[in-house]
Every structure is written in structure tokens, then in C-alpha cells.
């Protein structure tokens, strides 16, 4: 075997190996940017980011609730964007909004949209769900800005 061939094989192999590594990194990089672009495209109009939250949402005046905001308790400041699916609140892992509240039940309450209006429903909790001081016993429509209280946590719907 001529020496030159072995030398070429030796260095050529290393070069190829590193090209492979950088190709992999390139694939990951493309992945990363594809993700970033789509999340900007999709998420921004929903009003999750601070830039959109700052904008006055005057397109639809008042009526439709778009966010569930935690106003008091351990999770205060948290926002959940409302869609068309129900939101469950409780301590169980599979709830949409998982609270750490000691006074909340595993599956405490849920918010269900019906014809553009959100209804609050208690799911048999131990300590009850309150809508502006009144205990919720049957599905109750929730107006915007009225506090919902579960244990020590309070929420309200905002547009």
C-alpha cells in the first residue's frame, strides 16, 4: 500500500468526520430557526408575548374573553390564552392550569366556552369555587373582570 494513500485516508477520514459533525449541527440549526419562525408567526397574534399584550386590543370591544389571568395566589401574573377548548383548573397534573394551592382539589373547576361565553363549573371540589363571593354550584356565565376564587388563588377573564 503506497504511503501516500494511507496518509490521504488518514486525514481525509478525519476531515469527513468533522464535516459530518457540522452537517448534523447544520440540520439542528435549521430545525431551530424553523421553530423560532413558526412560533413567532403563530403565537404572537394570540397575545402571549408582552409586545402584543401592550397593544390595545380594540378590534373586538370587550365582549370576547381572550385570556385567563391569575390575579392572586402563588401563580399571580400567569396568563393563559383562551381558545375553544375547556380549561380545567386543579392540582392534578393533567389540568390545563395546575395550581399549587393547598386548598384546591385535584380537579377543582373548569371553564367551558359556549357560544362565545365562558361558563364556570365546579367539579365537586372540597372547598368550593367562588365567582365574586357567590359559591358556584351550577355552570355559571363568567363576565369579564369578575374574580373567580379557588382556594387562595384568584383568576379573572380579560379580553
Amino acid at each position: 500500500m503506497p504511503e501516500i494513500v494511507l496518509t490521504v485516508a488518514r486525514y481525509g477520514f478525519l476531515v469527513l468526520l468533522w464535516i459530518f459533525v457540522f452537517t448534523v449541527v447544520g440540520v439542528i440549526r435549521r430545525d431551530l430557526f424553523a421553530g423560532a419562525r413558526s412560533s413567532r408567526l403563530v403565537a404572537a397574534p394570540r397575545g402571549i408575548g408582552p409586545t402584543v399584550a401592550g397593544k390595545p386590543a380594540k378590534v373586538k370591544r370587550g365582549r370576547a374573553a381572550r385570556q385567563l389571568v391569575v390575579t392572586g395566589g402563588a401563580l399571580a401574573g400567569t396568563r393563559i390564552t383562551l381558545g375553544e377548548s375547556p380549561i380545567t383548573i386543579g392540582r392534578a397534573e393533567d389540568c390545563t392550569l395546575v395550581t399549587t394551592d393547598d386548598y384546591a382539589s385535584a380537579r377543582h373547576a373548569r371553564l367551558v366556552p359556549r357560544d362565545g361565553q365562558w361558563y364556570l363549573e365546579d367539579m365537586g371540589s372540597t372547598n368550593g369555587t367562588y365567582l365574586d363571593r357567590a359559591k358556584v354550584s351550577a355552570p355559571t356565565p363568567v363576565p369579564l373582570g369578575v374574580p373567580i376564587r379557588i382556594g387562595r388563588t384568584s383568576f379573572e377573564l380579560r379580553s
Partner: protein
Amino acid sequence: MTAPAIPAPPPINQGDGATAARPSRSGGRRNAELGLLAFAMVLVGGYAAAAEAALVGHFSFGFLGPLIAFAGILFVAHLLFRWLAPHADPVLLPAVALINGFGVMFLRRLDVAADAQSGASISIFGGQGGRQLMWTLLAVTGAVVALAIVRDHRSLSRYAYTLGLAGIVLVMIPAFLPARFSTINGAKLWIKFGSFFAIQPGEFAKIMLLVYFAYYLVRKREVLSLASKRFLGIDFPRGRDLGPVVTVWLLSLMVLIFEKDLGTSLMYFGMFVVTLYIATERVSWLIIGLVLFLGGAYTAYVLGGLIGGPFANFHLRANIWLDPFADPHGQGYQLVQSLLALGTGGMFGAGPGVGRPDMLPVVESDFIFAGMGEEIGLFGLAALLVVYLLIVERGLRAAIGVRDSFGKLFAGGLAFTLGLQVFVIVGGVSSLIPLTGQTTPFLSAGGSSLVANWLLVALLLRISDAARRPGDGSGSGRGGAPASGGPVKLQELPTEMIHASGASQRDGEKS
């Protein structure tokens, strides 16, 4: 690792606008996987060809048989993954295939060197390389079967207690077996069936234990992360919450004592501590874990010097590590040869097939990294390590992307375990830490390790598939009834699931 309480919507979060673009993208990712896989096969083939040409003295086609068999196995696996996990990470399979291929071809190169005359005409499944090829076939089949059975990683959490118990039993079996059934090279980690076939149950146990750890910590993390005392600017847990970590610490020390293997013991303990850290986001757990482990290892070392007995093996290994050249022809022989091989390799290595791996003891398993290092040099080894790093990174990425806490912990733990194993063995052969009998994942000869690590990769693929699936909500399966017809809107609300842990201190970052 300070994940915000509300994770930013991951790439899968899909709304009305991006629907059209998405399917093509996931298809493109599978093609990227195919391309990378082909590239990896070219590299493996190039390595095999160069090594064989250097050994036999002329170019020969002996390597083509194993190469085609190996590539065939992986391409079939790739096609099945297209169907079983269409959105899975495109990098994992090619990266693992590359390392596995190097392992097979390096072992084959050992066979060729051992029999230089007829070397190149070894049959496809003959010799160590052929054996490894068969194990690869079995391991990849195992991975495909695992992907086919586990359609949703969360279903594993249902068997958490069963798997945890099975894991502990598997870990303990070698300790109770008589030494002639369980000891290889001083480590009591094996179950031997006859003289030619041995399995290492601990390799499988690590995955099972991880399922249990993840399940347990998802349920307990609130207690473990919220109740704490502040000391020196770090939140430390209360005394009574230390129970689980102390239990696992004692168990891993028992592994160290009764199975005489630091690496395995470090592995289980590290796995638990890191899952705990991911679950609670508390640095204090890492500090506690490190202090406990170092303290335990040091005590074992001192005890080994004083009374010997079960600690003697560890004491000996630590001494070799402290001064390998004290007895270069006796106890330090293995490590000294390994260091010499790495030194001979230098920056660019001697070239494939030009090194002298036959000088290295147990080069086919424990010291395969040093054996390859002699031939591909620091540049090649660094590339291999980067490939390992990328595998681990993709695992952690899947953990970040997936939406349920169990999946996050499980994927994070799996990825970390793989990284830790590489660290333990590479650190061992390069004399950074005391040498232990861990296998180099995917690279070294050994069926159990290969099968278990391919299973691990299958689970990572499953989780990354769930994490990257376009937002039809099925990756989360939460939030009450499925959407009744209509366009899928914010069905992926669970994306915004709030993680209880650390929510209280992180209010500032949130809004």
C-alpha cells in the same frame, strides 16, 4: 435550566397560519435523517476500507459484506421510523448509527489484524465484529419493537412501580449470585450463562429505574421544591425531605460495595440526583448529591485501605488512578497502556488500521475508546465526543419540547444517563476519574449495553416524536374533551400548562 413557568410555545404550537407549511417540514426532517444516515454509512465504510487496506496491505472488498449488512439494518430501521415516529428528531438515528458502525468496524478490524493472512475474508457474522453486527441487528430490532409497543411514552408511567421494582431486582441479582456466575474483571455486574454469553442486567435496570424516578418525582416535586430553608443564598430542602435522596444514595453505595463498581453506582445516583434537579430546579440538590457521593466514595476509599474486604477493589482502582505509573507492569498495566495508546495517537492519530490495539488489554470493550484514539487521534476522538454530545443535546431538546412533566423528566434523565455513561468511561480510560467497567455506549463490544442503549434511543425518539408532532393536541392528550370538529385552534392549550415548581419565585420573569 431556568425554564420559565410558562414555557414559550414550542415549535409544535400550531395555529391557523402555519398549517400548510408544517407537513412538508416534518417530511423534510425525515429526509434529512436519511441523508445524514447515508453520510454516516459513507464514513463507516471509509473507516472500514482504510483500516482494512492498511492491515492487509492492498485494497480489498472484505469490508463490504458487514458494511452492507449494517447499512441495511439501519435503513430498514429508518423506514420503519418514518412510519412509527414520523416527527421524531432527525439527528438521533444517524448519530447513533455512526458510533455503532465505528464500533462494529473497529471490532472487525481487530479480527482482521489477528489473522492478517486470511483476515479480509472473514465471514460477515464471524469474529468479534460479526458478533457485534448480530447484536446490532438484535438491538435495532429491539428499538423498533419498543417504538411499536410504546406508542405514547406516558403509558410507561402506568407501570412505574412494576418497572421500578424490576429494576431494583435486576440491579441486585448479580450481588447475590456466586462470584463465578457474576464476576468479570473484578466487577460483580453480570449474569453469566455458560462461558460465552453474559448479560449485564444493570444496563436494562437503568431505564426501568428512570421510569420510576420520573414518575415518583413528578408526584413529589412540589414538596421537594417548595418547602425549603435558605442558607448561603441557596435554598436547601428540609431534613425530612432528604429521605428519598438518602435512600438512593445508600442503594448506590451498596452497589459500590457489593458489586464493586464505581461507575454503575455513580450512574444510578447521578441519574436520580439529576432527575431530582430537573423536577425541582433547585441547585441545592446537585450540591447535596455531589457532596454525598464524593463523601461516600472517599469513605469507601479510606475503609478499603483500612479494612479491605468489600472496599478493597475500589481502593485498588482509586490508587491506580492516583498514580498509574507506580506499577506499570502489574496493577497499573491497563491504564498505562491506555494512556500510551492515546499518547501515540497524538493529534491526528496513526491512521485507521495502523495503530496497535492488540497492545491494549480488553480493547474490545473497556478500552475501545483508547484503541480508537490511537488510530484517529485527538481530532477524531473529539469528533466522536461531539457526536455523543449532540445525541445528549437532542435528548434534552426533546425534554424541553415535550409537554407533560413525566416526559420531560424521563427524557432529561435518559439523555443525561447516556452522557454520564460516556463521561464515566472516557474519564476512566483517560485517567480523569478512577477507571470503572462501564461500557462505552454503542461503541464497545457487549450485547446488553448495545440493546439497552438502543432501547434508550428508541424512547428518546418516541418522546421527541411527541414533542415535535404538529399541534393536533394528541401529544398532550389533556384538557378535557377533544375538539368537536371544526378547525383545530388552540387545542394545544396544554402547551401553556403551568408548572408548579418554582412558580412562586419566578413571578418576575413571567410576564
